[in-house]
């Protein structure tokens, strides 16, 4: 009984805190000064059409580095908690047509993921979304074939290499005295082209590879349970 009263009190307190936000809500009609600066800077200084990408990769690049670190720590935690057991080879093999179709589809899904993270500065999407799509391709493979093995050393090599190169690109900016993780270290190119916007496509591709291999690792460790 006392529990229910406490829960009701907590929810009531939250509602009282929330009510002023809803009752004073007014539809915004204009952007803030900071957002205008970001949009203008994204067009003129970075030449990247997708403003969200330029905020994530360049203006808030340090945040993204922290975010990738959190994802890495979570992967390490999952791998530490769920240590892989040797699973005996299951006698039942997956049907031939299921195996063939899923490997064909998985390749297409991974190509879509690569397309999304290399075009992160031009179209909706980016490194995180592309990485999740690549991991979903591996998930399809793992679901369709129970004896599927993923080479862990390749996964770890891809993940660590892309992480090191990501930080390395940031440090190049420091050496050239432009700023840490600034994407102007490479020529800017033409607005709206694939090879443009400085180092943004490169950085986002590295993030995509890192996120893809980390999520594949999580899926594979959890699937082993």
């Amino acid at each position, binding site marked *: 009984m006392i529990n229910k009263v406490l829960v009701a009190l907590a929810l009531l307190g939250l509602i009282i805190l929330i009510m002023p936000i809803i009752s004073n*809500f007014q539809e915004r009609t204009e*952007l803030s000064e900071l957002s205008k600066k970001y949009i203008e800077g994204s067009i003129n200084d970075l030449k990247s059409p997708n403003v969200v990408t330029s905020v994530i990769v360049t203006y808030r690049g340090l945040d993204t580095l922290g975010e990738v670190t*959190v994802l890495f720590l*979570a992967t390490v935690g999952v791998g530490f908690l*769920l240590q892989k057991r040797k699973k005996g080879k299951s006698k039942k093999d997956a049907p031939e047509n299921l195996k063939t179709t899923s490997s064909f589809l998985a390749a297409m899904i991974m190509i879509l993921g690569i397309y999304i993270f290399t075009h992160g500065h031009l*179209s909706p999407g980016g490194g995180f979304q592309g990485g999740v799509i690549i991991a979903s391709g591996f998930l399809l493979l793992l679901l369709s074939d129970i004896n599927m093995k993923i080479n862990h050393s390749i996964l770890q090599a891809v993940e660590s290499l892309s992480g090191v190169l990501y930080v390395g690109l940031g440090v190049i900016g420091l050496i050239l005295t432009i700023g840490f993780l600034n994407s102007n270290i490479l020529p800017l190119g033409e607005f709206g082209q694939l090879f443009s916007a400085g180092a943004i496509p490169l950085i986002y591709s590295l993030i995509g590879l890192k996120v893809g291999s980390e999520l594949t690792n999580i899926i594979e460790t*959890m699937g082993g349970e």
Partner: protein
Amino acid sequence: MLYTLILGFALFLAGIFAMLTRKNMMKIILGFSIADTGIHIIIVSLGYLKDKTAPIIDSTIKISEATSSVVDPIPSALVLTAIVIGLATTALMLSFVVMMYKKKKSLSINDYQELKC
């Protein structure tokens, strides 16, 4: 967008309610995910501007009028960060639950009282 704001707060409260009242640890994690989604909807709806399009400057937007024809890009970027971190914490919580289930073969939070003193 008042309606999406209210929807977001409703999801947030529902998630908090589930976290406070359920005993099954899986359901507590589900409640956390629901509250997380509610917060994402709140942040995105706070950045919405009426009749504006996504902050991607393509051929349909004139570059000279770019600042007056797109929604706020900052909440979208923040929500992208929040989604990834929410996913990472959910995966970590689920693996903790798997470990605890292996130890005691129970998902009820009442069976784990060692930390209570």
